[in-house]
């Protein structure tokens, strides 16, 4: 009957360096505990702020969601292929692991097969998800959970070295958040590989997004508490061979993403996309569009504004378009679709004739030979007898002022270690 108290081994760490609060401890979960659901959850509740919870190597099964609501906790496994938290038998809770406290760090573990979302982080200041894998092991399936790694309404978000596979919405999704870094991560076999939605100030770099329906999506939607997404930089990524048929449940915005989209910017302003390798995407390599559905929200701007696309390299693309790329773009452009497609939706008649004001414009600065089409959707509605598309990429030359890189407070302290 010692089991009851043997569930947690508490080790005092008073001798450790200063920034850890006095009651912080290292808690090691006993891998032989049969009720790890209870012992791990108890540790997550009773840990003092600043503590580290270690989960040893092993495959652990959970029937309910785990949750963390204590500040500054690190949850660390022995590696993303060694410490595996399986939620295959989960019967309650709409995510595997829910974090609602500031300053958490989750690293070196995997979350598998949740019926809902993998890791959800809501309303926090400071979250680091590092070397974490979230995966639906049966591969793409409409029955998989929606989001793999899912911080929302949060500030100071770091996702580094993550792997996300099989999400029926987005593998890595950051929504309604601010000050975000997503880097060095791999997203594959999801509907959306990496999606930044209704967010401000994000740097997305050094990622690989492949075998998804769409590689990297920068979206803005109406009727949400935070909207008007802006100040996003997407650079040094590889978004290649995104060719998985869309398996998102209809009704979700990503269900409309054409199979084989490299990078897609929808609504949003001040977006810089550069130095990416984009290729082997059968619908279109780079797509810039307005929010396509009707909506009832006076405060929402459906247009992409002040978008700057430059110094990317384009491989093959657009030879086998799907969904809207097939039905709405291909009839205008023919095959293959150009490397960069902008729907040309603009605000009003003036812009339809003369282009949007410079601060709202689409700016493109790519290597010679990069193909482009402005589909002129609005102009064609006004002047149907002059309908056509504009392929003159040189007319879109321009730039937006560079923005400084995002620096996250949690990384400043990490440098001290």
């Amino acid at each position, binding site marked *: 009957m010692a089991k009851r108290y043997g569930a947690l081994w508490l080790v005092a760490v008073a001798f450790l360096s200063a920034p850890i609060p006095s009651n912080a401890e290292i808690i090691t979960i006993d891998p032989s505990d049969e009720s790890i659901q209870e012992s791990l959850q108890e540790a997550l509740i009773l840990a003092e702020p600043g503590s580290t919870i270690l989960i040893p190597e092993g495959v652990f099964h959970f029937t309910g969601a785990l949750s963390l609501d204590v500040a500054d906790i690190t949850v660390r496994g022995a590696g993303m292929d060694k410490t595996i938290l399986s939620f295959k038998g989960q019967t309650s*809770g709409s995510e595997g692991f*829910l974090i609602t406290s500031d300053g958490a760090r989750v690293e070196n573990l995997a979350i598998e097969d949740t019926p809902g979302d993998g890791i959800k982080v809501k309303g926090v200041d400071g979250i680091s998800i590092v070397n974490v894998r979230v995966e639906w092991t049966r591969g793409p399936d409409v029955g998989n959970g929606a989001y793999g790694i899912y911080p929302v309404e949060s500030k100071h978000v770091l996702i580094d070295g993550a792997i996300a596979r099989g999400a029926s919405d987005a593998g890595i999704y950051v929504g309604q958040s601010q000050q975000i870094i997503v880097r060095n991560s791999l997203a594959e076999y999801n509907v959306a590989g990496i999606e930044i939605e209704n967010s401000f100030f994000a740097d997305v770099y050094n990622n690989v997004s492949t075998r998804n329906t769409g590689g990297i999506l920068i979206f803005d939607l109406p009727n949400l508490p935070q909207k008007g997404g802006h100040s996003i930089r997407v650079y040094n990524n590889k978004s290649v061979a995104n060719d998985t048929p869309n398996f998102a449940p209809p009704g979700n915005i990503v269900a409309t993403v054409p199979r084989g989209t490299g990078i897609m910017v929808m609504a949003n302003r001040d977006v810089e996309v550069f130095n990416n390798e984009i290729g082997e995407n059968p619908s279109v390599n780079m797509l810039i569009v307005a929010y396509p559905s009707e909506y009832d929200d006076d405060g929402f701007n459906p247009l992409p504004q002040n978008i700057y696309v430059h110094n990317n390299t384009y491989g093959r693309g657009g030879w086998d378009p799907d969904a809207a790329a097939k039905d709405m773009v291909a009839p205008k452009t023919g095959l293959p679709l150009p490397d960069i497609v902008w729907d040309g939706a603009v605000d009003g008649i003036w812009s339809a004739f003369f282009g949007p004001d410079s601060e709202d414009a689409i700016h493109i600065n790519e290597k010679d030979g990069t193909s482009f089409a402005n589909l002129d959707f609005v102009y064609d509605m006004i002047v149907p007898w002059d309908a056509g598309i504009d392929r003159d990429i040189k007319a879109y030359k321009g730039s937006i002022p560079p923005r400084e890189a995002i620096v996250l407070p949690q990384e400043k302290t990490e440098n001290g270690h």
Partner: protein
Amino acid sequence: MQTLLSVLVVVASLATPAFAEVLPVNDDAILEPRPARLLSAYGLFLDGRAQTPNEGVHPFSLQQPLFTDYANKYRFVYMPKGTKATYQETEVFDFPVGTVLVKTFAYPADFRKPAEDIRLIETRLLIHQATGWTAWAYVWNQDQSDAVLKVAGKSLPVSWIDSTGQERSITYAVPNKNQCKGCHSLGKDFTPIGPKARNLNFEFAYSAGARNQLQYWSEAALLSGAPPHEAAPSVPAMDDMSASLNDRARAYMDINCAHCHRLEGPASTSGLFLTYGETNRTAWGYKKRPVAAGRGSGGFIYDIVPGDPDRSILLFRMTSNDPGIMMPELGRSIVDDEGIALLSVWIKGLK
């Protein structure tokens, strides 16, 4: 169910036997940051098994209760001597430090004999300490003599015979502390949900006779600043056919959904806001597209399709028991047939 509850509470709140030495409610235990291991340590009940409250512990009820797998709920409020809550028109009253809101979940063996053979499952305490509200769940032991603190929650098999004579069995989930916060959050604060003027503004069968609860709270010096109850907001009961269908449906969603689905709540990110007072129709779901529903969309386009409940995401999610789809996310393992029936009729009638 309302009547049953009232009957039980009347029985429960009869005066204390004169011969017993009555210890008052344990204010020290309430204010202690560490929770007591046993429920009895707080002294909230004279007789826990019978749910007989101690002096100063007042029973109350809500016009529309949250659906929790058909469990009966016995609610009590305790405030330290000489303190009272301050009235709020639309939000939860401001309760003084030292307040305890008590909710016991119980099942009669047979809902056709609701006063017999009652099994207490758990008692949840919402305690207002100087640092804010905190929540603990106590699970009743086999002989129902006391209840034991469960920090990490617990799953329990529960069965009963329902009001139609059918056998029902579920795995009842006692929430852990974080799951409590999953609903009891308003902005950054942990907060009660039920004791709002509109939920309390109806007649309750006290041991001394029936009385409007707002009136009783004012008279018993539990509440200051309340207007006459006729001037306070109210919601209709779900089965009150004298009230409009719209009001009944909105009141149902107010108590079952809006603790999360409001701008300040845990489901703020969805943009679906279901408080009783929400007037923006896109916000309460009318032709509103989902945001992060995933499988929860069921392949449908809008949360509420006027006239078409079968294609409304809201009902699809209420009808599911799959953790990746179901709404509410917590607090139920089976569906609320009566709630679904109410909202179906309501959506069918929407233009």
